């Protein structure tokens, strides 16, 4: 199949950037979206042009590295799918595909389709951890965990930190990400001692980094490749308010 790619090109964080059109022939419907970009880059290199810079790692939907805004939606038009799990059979022959980087003040463009997502790391460093004894590994199952807490915590823990929630949100809010991380730990006994401090520290860091605030549109949940529920955001609000009332 032949496709037309409209891709955001930006040389450096300071460059203004622009869209460029790339017609690409010989695309197989069995190619993943990233394989198609690899193929495009091979073609560009052969022509002596600079390849398009994008990020990827595991290419099996579990690392959260890849993330492109494809035809107006993060990770493309499929639900619960990362960019690497998107296949060219989802597109029509002759289609023009618009590919953009995540757009958010807190995620500045580094080059082409790569954005700097260190803001997520900084939020995690602010409180997304538990304090444990660094000695020998504790015996498994020493602390009983109720099944429903475990299930909810696990669902929250499936967040791969790809940033699609921020990219999709009209407010560029990181609430779903922070909610998933706070919920994951707050639901488990090991996370309880630091729950109040964690909620306050992570929200404060999120605000400081310039993410918007949640207006409950639900776009994040709809676009999350792991389908993380916005019920976690209600839990974050609860944890945050509880933490502030304790003062």
């Amino acid at each position: 199949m032949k496709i037309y790619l409209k891709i955001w090109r930006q040389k450096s964080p300071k460059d203004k950037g622009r869209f460029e059109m790339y017609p690409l022939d010989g695309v197989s419907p069995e190619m993943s979206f990233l394989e198609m970009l690899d193929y495009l880059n091979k073609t560009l290199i052969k022509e002596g042009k600079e390849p398009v810079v994008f990020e990827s790692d595991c290419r099996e939907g579990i690392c959260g590295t890849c993330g492109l805004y494809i035809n107006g939606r993060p990770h493309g038009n499929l639900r619960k799918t990362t960019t690497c799990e998107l296949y060219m059979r989802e597109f029509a022959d002759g289609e023009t595909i618009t590919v953009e980087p995540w757009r958010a003040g807190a995620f500045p463009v580094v080059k082409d389709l790569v954005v700097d997502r260190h803001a997520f790391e900084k939020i995690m460093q602010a409180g997304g951890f538990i304090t444990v004894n660094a000695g020998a590994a504790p015996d498994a199952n020493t602390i009983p965990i109720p099944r429903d807490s475990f299930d909810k915590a696990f669902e929250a823990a499936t967040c791969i930190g790809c940033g699609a929630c921020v990219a999709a949100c009209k407010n560029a809010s990181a609430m779903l990400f922070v909610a998933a991380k706070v919920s994951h730990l707050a639901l488990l006994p090991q996370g309880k001692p630091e729950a109040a401090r964690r909620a306050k520290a992570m929200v404060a860091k999120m605000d400081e980094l310039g993410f918007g605030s949640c207006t409950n549109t639900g776009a994040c949940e709809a676009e999350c490749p792991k389908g993380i529920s916005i019920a976690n955001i209600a839990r974050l609000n609860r944890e945050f308010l509880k933490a502030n009332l304790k003062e």
Partner: protein
Amino acid sequence: MNKLFASSIGRKLLVALSGMFLILFLVVHLSINLLLIFDDSGALFNKGAHFMATNPMVGVMEPLLAVGFVVHIMYATIVTIRNYRARPNGYLKNLPSANSSWESRNMFVLGGIILFFLILHLNHFFVKMKFTGDPLLTTVIIDGVAMKNSYLLVSSLFKENFWYSIGYMIWAVFLGFHLVHGFWSAFQTVGLNNEVWIQRLQNVSIIYATIIAAGFCIIPLYFIIFF
């Protein structure tokens, strides 16, 4: 606590709590207004309006209501401006309708439209009833009690000004859309939500918003059709 209201969640908490207060107010307001269509002599509505004007509890609630409106509008504006700034560069191609509802993305616009009509509305009724008076606001005696003929003022406007009635109904529909998202959203923001209740609250939102929008539409419709 100062820190709380300087945080993004704290600011939204104020929008949510004031919104919940306004949600309750709308129920009271609509209940009184509906008295307009159950008694064409106007005695029922006049008694309701007289009660609202003279009851000391209502007197206490009135300034609180004004505060509720101010807080809701002010903090919603602050939140919206900050959210707008969070994405300096937008997308070339964006399909938000694939992942979210129109009303949820346009709460500020809907709020602005509601505010515009609210000012008109206050000017037509509240200011006249409370401060300036109007030739139509004659004194009537119902059950031996002298009161203002609020019914005459309100019903005359609906009977005589067709376009005002139409505008009023359009306003009610916009208000309905604001409430479809606002109702459950307020619960979500104060943390009273979970995996099970999210759907229930969204259903209640639709029911509540429909009752409010339809209720406010019925009144001008009644006067257009029967007078």
